[in-house]
């Protein structure tokens, strides 16, 4: 089990955005979280990655081969250092930095150079910097945008920006990758390439993947298990075929009056 969420609840004032959600992901799984708009999916993501502090519940992660580790209420940068990396629904790159520099920020939590090293430029710092450039470039090659390394991030085509976000997340050396609507705004060809990329990440790089997605064809082809949320509650869990037939899911998506 790489991620184990127990009874996670998040209240915003009187509004319960996430209500006692349990969720487990095993090593190497691709799991999707779906649900209508406003179901609390992104809030759930933000609770897991530490952007929000959950009201109650626990989040435990375990790097494969290590002891489980409670990360509830940990600050986001520490959670990232533990091996959880995420992308954002509305792309959040560093727009004025180059593509390579964006990925280099992803490497940041694995670096040790300090201020004194920066000023003195001793051998250790220089070697580390050189290594960062290479490692970051490798990440770009993995997602297939190496040729744009020195381009300013905001000038990249949309699909490449999404890929850059993935590359940046990979650079943090995660074992679990959280993708918040990775295919949003992509055309069918870009989506197919994305599916191939995510599969490759799982098989070649042994990552577990947890994604929020609205594109049902992507969810159904890619994921092994699906969690469905509605109004903050988990309403169904299962394999794609099961979930697709689940009356509660159909009701949540299509409304009360349609009989399944």
């Amino acid at each position, binding site marked *: 089990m790489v991620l184990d969420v127990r009874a996670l609840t998040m209240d915003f004032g009187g509004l319960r955005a996430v209500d006692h959600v349990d969720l487990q992901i095993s090593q190497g799984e691709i799991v999707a979280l779906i649900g209508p708009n406003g179901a609390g999916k992104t809030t759930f993501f933000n609770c897991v990655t530490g*952007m929000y502090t959950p009201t109650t519940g626990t989040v435990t992660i375990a790097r494969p081969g290590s002891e489980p580790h409670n990360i509830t209420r940990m600050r986001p940068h520490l959670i*990232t250092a533990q091996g959880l990396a995420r992308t954002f629904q509305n792309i959040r*790159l560093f727009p004025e930095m*180059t593509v390579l520099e964006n990925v280099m920020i992803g490497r940041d*939590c694995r670096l040790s150079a300090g*201020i004194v090293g*920066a000023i003195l430029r001793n051998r250790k710092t220089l070697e580390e910097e050189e290594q960062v450039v290479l490692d970051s470039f490798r990440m770009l*090659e*993995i997602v297939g945008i190496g040729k744009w390394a020195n381009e300013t991030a905001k000038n990249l085509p949309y699909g490449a920006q999404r890929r850059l976000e993935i590359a940046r997340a990979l650079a943090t*050396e995660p074992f679990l990758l959280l993708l918040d609507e990775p295919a949003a705004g992509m055309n069918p060809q870009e989506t197919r390439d994305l599916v191939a990329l995510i599969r490759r990440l799982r098989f070649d790089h042994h990552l577990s993947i947890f994604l929020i997605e609205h594109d049902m064809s992507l969810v159904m082809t890619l994921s092994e298990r699906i969690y469905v949320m509605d109004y903050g509650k988990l309403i169904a869990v299962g394999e794609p075929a099961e979930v697709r037939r689940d009356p509660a899911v159909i009701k949540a998506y299509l409304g009360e009056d349609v009989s399944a």
Partner: protein
Amino acid sequence: MCPQATSVQTRPSRYLAYARRSLLVSIWFAILTFPIIVIRANTITGIITWRWHNIGWIIAGTFFGSWIWGYFLERKRLGTRAPAGPLRRRITALRGALDRLKQRPQVARMSVVILVLAVVAFPFLGGMYQTNIMTTALLYVVLGLGLNIIIGLGGMLHIGYIAFYALGAYSYALLNFHFGLNFWLALPIGALVGGLFSLAIGIPVLRLRGDYLAIVTLAFAEITRLVLENWSGLTFGTAGIRNIPRPAIPGIRLTLPQTTTFVYFIMIGLVLLTIFVVNRLENSRIGRQFVAMKEDFIACQAMGVNIARTKLAALGLGGMWAGLVGVVFAARTTFINPASFTVWESIIVLCTVVLGGMGSIPGVITGALVLILVPEYLRAFAQFRMLLFGAILVTMMVFRPGGLIQKRRRAYRITAEEQKVVAESGDLSIQG
């Protein structure tokens, strides 16, 4: 009157539209300024003079000003789509020639030699008055570069920067007064004091950004000044501290002009040190963190950067320089009082950073030199100084928001050989 329809309009009618708009602006402006421009009431003799001719000047001036403004705005809006006029073509050609010239190694070497000669010869050719002005400008260069770490790199709008300058100056003045500490020992102490106080006010404001941070830092600067003014037991209040010793070389007696030259060279040294350090910080892990934090602090945090530490690093590294040159300021003027450290001074430093180009070292240097030297040489226009200042800043923000010399991101070279190595090692285990 209808700027949206310009694409279908022919050229002359567009200019006509500007003209009509400009006319309206000038009439409005004439009405607005009427009471102060036209009427002059002599309260002693009780005579009112009507200076109607002034209104003509106002209308004419505003009309042309507005027309030119509109013209340039339109050009900016059209951007590269605007047909290149003969002037623009000539400018482009000139720029190309300059670029080609810059690439020649001899030219680069020559310009460095000339610059060094000019810097060294300046105090001997310019005399004491010029040297003093230049030293002031150099103080602001260091202040600008220091604030640039906080604003240009870290993206924190800090308006209380001058407080650290004041603290640096006072720490030298007081340590010297009570313990006879000399200038050279005071320099690092001033830097330390500036950096530590910057950190100290940084901790409570870690959660604040943008306008909120600006207000808090502004308040901090005012509080610092008020404390200096009112804590008479320690700081001697508004009377200030006098007879602060000038920088000296042990064993050598310097005359006043010699000291002026000496301080000038100390400042040149400090400017070089600042450039060196800031440049290295910028091109390092910490510099990257600063910029990432400025661009998107949520993503930055999510990527594993400790925002609190990065912010404090930017504040500490920035505040240091103000404390450092504060010591030089105290030593140079030999007299300090709280009036030298008003918020206005903070605003000037802020303007040097914004005008020059946020995050760009040559930009900030240019900005500081322009903002300090131009008013000195335009003494004749002293009354209009602030007006000109405002006009220049507004113009800059509209037409060149990135500053005079904009920051360019560094490009990394990855050799073909390295690319091959990367391509061959496809897996994610990065430690190596």
